[in-house]
């Protein structure tokens, strides 16, 4: 709101009645010009300059020149004339260097003359701190660049004395931009005196958009703000900005492609198994569990029995004796594969290490069984151990028993049949339990008989004695050319618990052959 002082022009004719009255009443005084609403006085700060302007309300009165006087309220002083504003034709006066006290109440008086006659007189009062109109906005220019708009604000080089540093902080410069109705305020920091030009840059603009800028001063205390007229420019970024945009888009696309390539490569490697290998190891191999380290879980004990097959390689002895019957027996029977899939070994000449000979077997053997595979323990057993004995059979049985024990000796090796002193060869073989006889050993130190364990037919038997590994032996043969080891003096075997139920499956009933042998 513009503060204006409405002062009436006082003509000299109006004074006469009052003078007359004063004379009548014995009172005389010189009545100064009194205010009358004849003109409007305004105090403005234009470019930080104190400008007093006036405008006559009665336009029919047109003075040719004006003169300005003023006084103050704080002291009893006469009116002072302003030298720069004497007999001026303009209707304003620069009082920047005249009115310097912000706390003072100034009383200006403007008299309009035509020639030497005073046509109009205007008087007002201004308390500079508050009665000053809002600052006129400064001059400025805007320049559009490719990526920003530059606002150049121009201030006067001379600061008014009424504006000391404290008062300068009173005002702030704001720049607005209007784009499609959107108003954005900027508050540039003015460092130093408000007398130097400064440049403010507005960036982050929308291309191909019309921007308008206005500047104004804003006092700290609520006052009316006087804004400058808008100055507009169309923001059109050049090739550089467009190319930058395209470069940005290209960069983004490139990044996406690279990311896609990397992800696909990683997925492929993972599928191949080159990375991120799965750990399918059993739980017992999972050493990352703390409980495993603290409380190691012992693997479940598996009941196994040690079975050791000791090969005793024996040189073939050629018997020069001309025994027709025996000559054949010297020859080791080549292992023949039986119809049942068993490998037979010719053991006729080797049954008795000293005295046992195949003759015994031959004597005792059932002629019908001659053609059977000799290392067929079952067959042997049947031959030798058949119940219903004839005397010779029983004898054969006993002998055969012994012989059988030796029968089980490796025919190919006579060097050392002791498993303790054996060659150490171990053989793991499948045993057809239907073809073997089983005997449970019971602390028999002198037992030279090879025990046979009942196990599932054609099952691989690997027996281990965890306690005695030296003298313990092994077992049993069937099948495929395996040799029967010999028990040690004190062999103990953990019998497999999962004794097959094949025993019951076989049509043959178990026949106790004495000495613990159970024949199937």
């Amino acid at each position, binding site marked *: 709101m513009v503060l204006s*002082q409405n002062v009436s022009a006082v003509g000299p004719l109006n004074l006469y009645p009052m003078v007359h009255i004063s004379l009548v009443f014995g009172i005389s005084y010189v009545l100064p010009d009194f*205010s009358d609403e004849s003109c409007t006085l305004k105090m403005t700060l234009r470019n930080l300059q104190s400008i007093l302007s006036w405008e006559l309300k009665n336009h029919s009165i047109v003075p040719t020149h004006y003169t300005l006087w003023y006084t103050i*309220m704080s002291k009893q002083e006469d009116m002072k004339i302003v030298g720069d504003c004497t007999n001026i034709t303009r209707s304003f006066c620069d009082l920047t260097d005249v009115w310097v006290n912000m706390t*003072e*109440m100034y009383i200006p008086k403007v008299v309009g003359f035509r020639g030497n006659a005073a046509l109009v007189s205007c*008087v007002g009062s201004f308390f500079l701190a508050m009665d000053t109109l809002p600052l006129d906005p400064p001059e400025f220019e805007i320049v559009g660049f490719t990526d920003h708009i530059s606002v150049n604000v121009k201030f006067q080089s001379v600061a008014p004395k009424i504006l000391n540093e*404290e008062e300068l902080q009173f005002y702030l410069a704001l720049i607005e931009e209007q784009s499609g109705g959107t108003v954005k305020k900027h508050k540039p920091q003015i460092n130093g005196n408000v007398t130097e030009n400064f440049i403010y840059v507005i960036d982050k603009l929308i291309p191909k958009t019309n921007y308008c800028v206005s500047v104004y001063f804003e006092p700290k205390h609520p006052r009316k703000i006087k804004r400058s007229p808008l100055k507009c420019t169309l923001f059109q970024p050049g090739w550089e900005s467009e190319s930058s945009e395209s470069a940005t888009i290209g960069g983004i696309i490139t990044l996406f492609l690279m990311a896609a390539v990397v992800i696909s490569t990683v997925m492929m490697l993972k599928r191949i198994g080159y990375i991120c290998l799965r750990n399918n190891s059993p739980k017992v191999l999972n050493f990352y569990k703390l409980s495993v380290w603290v409380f190691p879980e012992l693997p479940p004990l598996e009941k196994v029995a040690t079975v050791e097959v000791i090969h005793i390689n024996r040189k073939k002895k050629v018997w020069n004796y001309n025994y027709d019957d025996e000559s054949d027996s010297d020859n080791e029977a080549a292992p023949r594969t039986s119809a049942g899939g068993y490998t037979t070994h010719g053991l006729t000449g080797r049954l008795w290490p000293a005295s046992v000979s195949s003759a015994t077997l031959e004597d005792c053997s059932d002629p019908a069984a001659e053609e059977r595979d000799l290392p067929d323990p079952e067959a042997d057993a049947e031959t030798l151990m058949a119940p219903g004995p004839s005397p010779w059979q029983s004898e054969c049985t006993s002998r055969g028993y012994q012989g059988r024990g030796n029968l089980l000796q490796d025919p190919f090796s006579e060097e050392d049949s002791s498993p303790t002193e054996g060659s150490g060869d171990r053989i793991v073989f499948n045993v057809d339990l239907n073809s073997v006889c089983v005997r449970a050993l019971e602390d028999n130190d002198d037992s030279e008989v090879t025990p046979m364990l009942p196990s599932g037919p054609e099952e691989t038997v690997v027996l281990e004695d965890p306690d005695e590994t030296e003298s313990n032996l092994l077992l049993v043969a069937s099948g495929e050319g395996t040799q029967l080891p010999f028990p040690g003096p004190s062999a103990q075997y953990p019998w497999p618990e999962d004794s097959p139920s094949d025993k019951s499956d076989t049509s043959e009933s178990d026949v106790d052959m004495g000495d613990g042998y159970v024949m199937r």
Partner: protein
Amino acid sequence: MSAEPDVIRKCMWPVCLMGLFVTSVLSLDCNLLNVHLRRVTWQNLSLLRRMSKSFPIECLRESKAFELPQEILSHTQPLTRDIKEAFYEMSRQAFHIFIQDTFKSTWEEKHLRQVQIGLDQQLQYLEQCLEEEEENEDMREVAEDERTQSGTPVPQLSNLELRRYFNRIDRFLKDKKYSHCAWEIVRVEIRRCFYFFHKFTALLRRK
């Protein structure tokens, strides 16, 4: 007898406003004293300007130099408490002037009431903050004694000068018999005083 309800009705509104302002004042933080004083002082300045359209030129010859004690700002390092006490003294004296009923015809009553309420609010706020500061005054009193011995002007002189200043104003009014021109001249002078103290609040802000 019928005047009592009218009086009550008339006084109800300003009393309620006073109560609200007192409550709001008492809840104010003394750390924001400078902000509050600056705001209230500027409001009073605006009110005094609106109370009269323009200064009557015919009253110009009755003007008088009341000699506002601007030297209270000339101290090199006035203490915060001294500034507050000066503000309190100025508010109290100005309130005493405007609480008189002799200028009812001069200005609009609503403007006058607003000035009174503003000054009273200012007084309450300053009293609260000065009481809080008295609790921590022991050390400052020792410092003031030292300053007194060093020859630096005692800050209490500023309050004495203020009292003399307002006494001159009050005497002017009485001499002029509370005429219209006397009140207009006093209004202009009080505006100068308020603006002077408005600049004074800048010292509180800097501290």
